């Protein structure tokens, strides 16, 4: 038993070392400016919150955080909402061309973003949607939809048909069966799909970089990439901004781990 604990502890240490780059960045965000360049010692002489102060007061990060949160939430809602309906249809209802639709969806996940970014840019420009939340909500939702539908269709198929048949016997039509029988049961699956969609939207960079022009819609990854520096790069401030940008992913990995893992596994292990 002792050996088991020791072994597990070593593995844990190994993984902590693996995550060391992140902890180093966290330490950098607390290191005073004077001790950043050149690096003289591992642990700083004192810890400071000056970088966070700069990020909150002087940078565009606060606004970017709001943008990212709003866009991620709304695109997740859109993707899961539309995805759940479509998944139910594909899993339970007669669909002509089901195979083709499924194949199309799988293919859609393989489309490289770099290829679709230019037509989408022209499209957004034509509709006057550049630098708006809506452009990114739509783009992110469209990218998350195939995965969401794929996941949810699988989860729905796991629910025994008998439950819905029982509901039908009780006089409930399809929509009611969906609302009262299927959805509650597939809710954990929807949570998984939603978490993945949220994570994807929060981390998305290419579309956000290309479609946004000002702090009206700039998301966190873009704000981080464009972090201003007058003469030299402000590494401490960037580290602080990076930490802030990582808060939702950290939260998901720590608090919602079970759903996240379930979503990842379901997506990959289903043939």
């Amino acid at each position: 038993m002792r050996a088991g604990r020791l072994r597990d502890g070593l593995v844990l240490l190994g993984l902590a070392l693996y995550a060391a780059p992140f902890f180093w960045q966290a330490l950098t965000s607390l290191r005073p400016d004077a001790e950043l360049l050149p690096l003289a010692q591992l642990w700083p002489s004192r810890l400071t919150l000056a970088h966070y102060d700069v990020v909150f007061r002087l940078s565009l990060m606060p606004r970017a955080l709001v943008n990212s949160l709003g866009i991620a939430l709304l695109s997740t809602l859109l993707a899961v909402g539309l995805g759940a309906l479509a998944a139910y249809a594909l899993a339970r209802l007669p669909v002509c061309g089901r195979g083709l639709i499924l194949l199309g969806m799988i293919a859609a996940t393989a489309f490289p973003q770099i290829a679709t970014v230019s037509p989408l840019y022209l499209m957004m420009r034509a509709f006057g949607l550049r630098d708006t939340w809506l452009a990114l909500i739509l783009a992110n939702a469209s990218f998350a939809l195939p995965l969401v539908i794929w996941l949810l269709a699988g989860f729905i198929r796991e629910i025994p048909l008998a439950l819905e048949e029982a509901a039908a016997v009780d006089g409930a039509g399809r929509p009611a069966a969906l609302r009262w029988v299927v959805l509650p049961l597939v809710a954990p699956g929807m949570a998984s799909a939603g978490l993945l969609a949220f994570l994807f939207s929060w981390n998305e960079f290419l579309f956000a970089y290309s479609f946004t022009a000002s702090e009206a819609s700039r998301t966190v990854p873009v704000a981080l990439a464009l972090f201003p520096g007058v003469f030299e790069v402000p590494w401490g401030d960037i580290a602080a901004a990076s930490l802030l940008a990582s808060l939702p992913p950290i939260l998901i990995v720590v608090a919602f781990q079970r759903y996240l893992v379930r979503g990842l596994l379901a997506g990959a292990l289903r043939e």
Partner: protein
Amino acid sequence: MARRPARAVLLGMPALLLTLIAGGCGERATPGAPVTLVFKHAKILGPADPVPGLLRRFEALHPGVRVRSEALTWSSDEQHQFYAINLEGGSPPFDVMMLDVIWVPEFARAGWILDLTAFVPAAERAAHFPSALEPAVQEGKLWALPWFMNVGLLYYRTDLLAKYGFAPPEAYDELVRQVRRIRAGEGDPRLDGFLWQGKQYEGGMVNVLEALWANGARLLDDAGRPFPEPARARESLAFLRGLIESGVSPGWVTAADEELTRRPFGDGRAIFLRGWPYALDLFELPASPVRGKVGVAPLPRLPHGEVGAGSTGGAHLAVSARTRHQALAVELVRFLTSDAAQRAMTEGAALRPSRPSLYRDAALVARDPSLPALLGLMQRGRPRPITPYYLMLSTTLQPEFSAVLVGRKSPERAIRDATAQVDHLLRAIAP
């Protein structure tokens, strides 16, 4: 009964519309209705920033007008990206913009900036350097006014050169000889020879262009075809690479921009620096280690070229084509580029005016004795190719030149590949 109100509305409508239109067209700031102009510009380098003072003076001259100043990001390429994204297909949230001189033809061709011809009298135009005005005049119309002027020049350590009895080098092989001699004499391993900007960005492009011109090579011929003198261009590129290989320049110049090279020179750790005039003010600050030990000279030449082929640069001020306050915005531009404003900028910040007359002004020269010498350098300087497609060219060529500087490609191959890429570009632009 229902008809009377309807008729009143019908009669009232045209009157209402007319008042609205008249009110909207009026440029005068009606009292109680403040007009805010947004002025977008990069942070001004140097000891003091004169812009806020100037803007307050403009506001005092135009009651009811506020000018909000907004800063751009530091790098020129990012500034351009910002402008392009904002101007291209929307109503940009700014009225007056500071543009790098190389962008003016492009912005004019794209229809993003206002035609200023009617607003600016010929005498006012002629007061600026011809080489500064040339890029701003496209198809006979004036699109921007020069705000400040730059030219690439050679900084050198007067104390080190005097110690070994050298005069500022007129040719690059002389510069190399001096570097070797001085470093051998000083015996300081941390003393670098010649610092310049070799990073893959617009500044790096400037350095390469200056090397081309120093050898009598051009980037484009009059018809716009690339590398009309390929052999000389090859020599220039080989020379730059040679500086790094021989150790005259440290290897990190291939990742260095203006500030990364200015600081070591300003700390006394280099003999020569290729830079812009703003750096001189920083070298002459009271706390600077090199105060009083820095001289300014024209860039040296290579075998086939001439001395002083520095690139001119600087910024212009332009008005957004979509601004809602045309007359006021133009007023701001004319105010900021006026004699008085440029005088204030020369006194307060490390900026050099675009008006030749100010270089001979007694009061200014008393404060800054280097002005007359700079005037000569500016007049000898050359602008980068004046074409709306300059930035496209530059971003296409930068990787090729960078490949030579880091030793990844030979100059021959780089020029061959660069020519192919430019030809492809030109096929799209000018069939």
